[in-house]
């Protein structure tokens, strides 16, 4: 029953014709390779040797307990922090347009909603103001907020802010997109809409996607591959070999989800005993 309800709205977007133009320059994703990646803060080692190869254009989901180092990993990949040890190589060298949706919305408080979205297009080949506005409006519409285009961010609800941040990322034609719990503040319905939007844009543009999420079913439904981080290392790394479009709630996805959850709950045997 639940699942039928979900299904009703589930594939809406995939079936509509893609409205967004593909820029000729954005030719798919880049590969990301992490070798023996370590990261320590003052007293604690958060990442203790991460080895991971993400092929170009893969959609990978990263899950793990709160505080396990997911955001830290994304920051390292994005080059915002330097690793304590280890190597990160992205693409074939040269400039790579990578974008993050941060865990907080990080909207510019002094820019109206539409200008925050437009910001996603700086540094891209889209320069023509009309085209910038068009693309931004289309994306803002896709996240359901066209009517908020001229509001200050402070007048948005929590979920609305998150969606604006998502729009800013999706409009930007990245070759690598890292998303840090981008849908955490959304209700079930909006969430599914946004998941579909994300999948659609990804299919369309072919960027490499790294999605941090705490919702295992979301990870399983969207990603080609799910990676579980625990105690600073990769504990689980499975391919989700299910063809798209995927039917949410299908037996195969449920089974994979169950498997992942099992590993997730097993990882803390001491606590379970207590």
């Amino acid at each position, binding site marked *: 029953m639940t699942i039928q309800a979900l299904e009703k709205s589930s594939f809406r977007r995939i079936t509509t014709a893609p409205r967004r133009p593909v820029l000729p320059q954005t030719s798919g994703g880049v590969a990301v390779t992490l070798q023996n990646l370590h990261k320590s803060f003052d007293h604690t080692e958060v990442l203790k040797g991460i080895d991971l190869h993400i092929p170009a254009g893969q959609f990978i989901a990263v899950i793990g307990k709160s505080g396990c180092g997911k955001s830290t990993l994304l920051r390292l990949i994005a080059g915002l922090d330097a690793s304590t040890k280890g190597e990160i190589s992205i693409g074939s060298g040269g400039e790579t347009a990578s974008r993050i949706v941060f865990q907080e919305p990080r909207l510019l408080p002094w*820019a109206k909603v539409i200008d925050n979205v437009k910001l996603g297009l*700086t*540094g891209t080949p889209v320069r023509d103001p009309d085209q910038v506005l068009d693309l931004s409006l289309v994306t803002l519409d896709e996240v359901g907020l066209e009517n908020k285009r001229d509001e200050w961010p*402070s007048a948005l609800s929590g979920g609305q802010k998150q969606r604006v941040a998502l729009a800013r990322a999706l409009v*930007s034609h990245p070759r690598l997109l890292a998303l840090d719990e981008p849908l955490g503040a959304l209700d079930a319905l909006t969430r599914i809409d946004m998941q579909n939007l994300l999948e659609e844009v990804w299919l369309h543009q072919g960027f490499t996607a790294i999605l941090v999420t705490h919702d295992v079913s979301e990870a399983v439904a969207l990603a080609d591959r799910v990676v579980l981080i625990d105690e600073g290392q990769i504990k689980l790394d499975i391919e989700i070999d299910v063809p798209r479009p995927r039917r949410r709630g299908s037996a195969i996805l449920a089974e994979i989800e169950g498997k992942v959850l099992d590993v997730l709950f097993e990882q803390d045997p001491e606590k379970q005993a207590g």
Partner: protein
Amino acid sequence: MTLSENFRLRSSSASSPSAHHESWRRPVRTILLTKARPWILPVLLVAAWQAAASAGLIPPYILPAPSAVLGAASGLIASGELFDHLLVSSARALGGFVIGATIGFAFGFLNGVSKTSEEYLDTTLQMIRNVPHLALIPLVILWFGIEEQSKLFLVALGVFFPIYINTFHGIRTVDRQLIEMGRIYGLSSRQLFWRVILPGALPSIFVGVRYALGIMWLTLIVAETIAASSGLGYMAMQAREFLLVDVVVLGITIYALLGKLADTAARLLERHYLAWHPSFQVH
């Protein structure tokens, strides 16, 4: 009335029930009263002063009555002298302000953005800041002579520091998260500056501007002791020299009004450029 209630928490609540009702019924009279509020205290002070003078409590050669000051003012206005002084001083003030503010902003920006530059420059600037203009005048005459340059230099120097310090502080405390975001979204240095750093530092920069607009006039009076024969500062100091107390008080009053003018300008700028900021929204 507790602090927390008092604190303008509800700044954006033009929709609070009472405010709602008020704006409904509020007659024109009330609106005028609100506008007049800032002037209540100054008017009271002047009235008390006039009363004391009229009652003979203050001998006129110590502190002339406001009416006497007005008399001096009308004399100077009629002869066109006051206007000339104001014009000359305003040109000096604005010229110095533009120079000082530009340089102050540039250094504030540089040191706010670059730790290295801060290390090399900030100490020196803080040391220069502490040198009184009065003590510096001999050197200023030496470097810039006794013409307009020396006056412009002093005003620029005075204006420099509040702009520098507040720009520095503003840029230094811009939300790092937003800068990270800008960087990740491929903003060029220039874009990062115009779209993230400057707007983020603006509230603090405006504090500097507001302060500098005052300092501008304060420095000018020192500058206009250097071989000047016109200007507001000259007028005031000359009057002081020759014990023309009414003109001195007139000078003080004009300074005060100029201060009010500059402040109003700063407020308008704030209102326009900080419309997004909850603390600066019109209530």
